[in-house]
């Protein structure tokens, strides 16, 4: 049976972030905009977990929690508080209220799931076999592994690519591939996450004795020159040029 999760937060943004965090798990999500609504939904649905904001109009999370603790049917429901305040006094107050755990905003969905798994078992969503998402980024062209970066590199994308990288490098070594092209022709704009990802890819390849060449546009080439970490990396302007350099280099 799917775990019922109730999110009580006046911000639709936070409710969406929580919903996304649980999307890979067998969960049924319920939402409320304030403590009063939250209590109504909790009484009706008997959730297995409540994710509860503190500062809300109509009824705050603190007030709702006090009412939950006084309700014999709901008092044992695990509650994870969301708070924008990490100060010592605030944290102590939250702990005293008898919550299972708390998460300080700003937070990532992964952080919330990590806290939840400390108190509950989350079942991965049943259904189709997990999609091999590495195909979005990795392809083989002859004797070269191509790693194509998308237009925008944000933290989740970077984590996803790095997550695939080790397995891909092991697979390359197993099949005798010793060359990788990091294709960044689609990338628009640089950021710290991109720079860290480039360095991680190059270092992983070097550690495995895999030769790597970087392909990008002239504009990207100029932008990478501005970062100390990437200023010395040679950039080829096409896949063909990179392949030629493998032959001659």
């Amino acid at each position: 049976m799917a775990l019922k999760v109730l999110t009580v937060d006046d911000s639709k943004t936070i409710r969406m972030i929580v919903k996304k965090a649980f999307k890979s798990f067998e969960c049924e999500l319920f939402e409320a905009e304030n403590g009063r609504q939250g209590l109504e939904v909790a009484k009706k649905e008997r959730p297995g977990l409540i994710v509860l904001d503190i500062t809300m109009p109509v009824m705050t999370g603190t007030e709702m929690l006090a009412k939950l603790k006084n309700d014999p049917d709901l008092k044992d429901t695990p509650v994870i508080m969301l708070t924008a305040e990490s100060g010592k006094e605030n944290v102590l107050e939250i702990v005293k209220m008898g919550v299972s755990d708390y998460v300080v905003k700003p937070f990532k969905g992964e952080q919330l799931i990590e806290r939840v798994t400390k108190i509950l078992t989350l079942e991965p969503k049943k259904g189709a076999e997990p999609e091999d998402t590495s195909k979005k980024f990795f392809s083989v062209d002859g004797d070269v592994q191509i790693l194509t970066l998308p237009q925008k590199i944000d933290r989740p994308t970077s984590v996803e690519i790095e997550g695939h990288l080790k397995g891909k490098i092991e697979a390359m070594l197993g099949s005798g591939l010793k060359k990788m092209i990091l294709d960044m022709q689609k990338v628009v704009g640089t950021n710290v996450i991109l720079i860290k990802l480039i360095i991680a890819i190059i270092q992983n390849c070097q550690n495995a004795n895999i030769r790597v060449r970087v392909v990008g546009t002239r504009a990207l080439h100029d932008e990478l020159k501005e970062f100390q970490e990437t200023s010395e990396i040679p950039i080829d302007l096409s896949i063909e040029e990179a392949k030629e350099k493998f032959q001659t280099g």
Partner: protein
Amino acid sequence: MANIEALDLKKFITDAVYGVFDTMLSMSVSTSDKEFRSNGEGRHIVGSVGFAGKLTGNVCIHLNEGFARLITAAMLGMETDEIEGDEEVYDVVGELSNMIGGDLKSRFSDANLPCNLSIPSITSGSDFTLESKGWERHESFVFQNQENLALVEVFVKEEK
């Protein structure tokens, strides 16, 4: 008085803004000497939260509409053309100010200036400025991500 004057508001604000932009938006921002202009293309959106307690005041984040939409898309993991309407943008800007305000509130409390935080409010329009008087400290900083600018202002005073 001494407490308020001793606060390193620049560090408080930059740490809070860097943390929120990095964690929630995967965006790196840096402080900028550029002037934030509210009368550019699109509307000017301000998210603010208030502090009330031993320290009172408020913190506001000013964004032009284009940057506010980029931030909304980043926060919700979507493209800007998938944004359903102004309410989504306002909610994200409000949450952004709530997170920055929450971080500041914690730092004020740790500096022996405990206070409570209000729920966020949004002001939106074109070509307006906010004037605030009667505060002991008023600091403002411009942050930049690529060509986009955000102005963060904080007004505070100590209650006697």
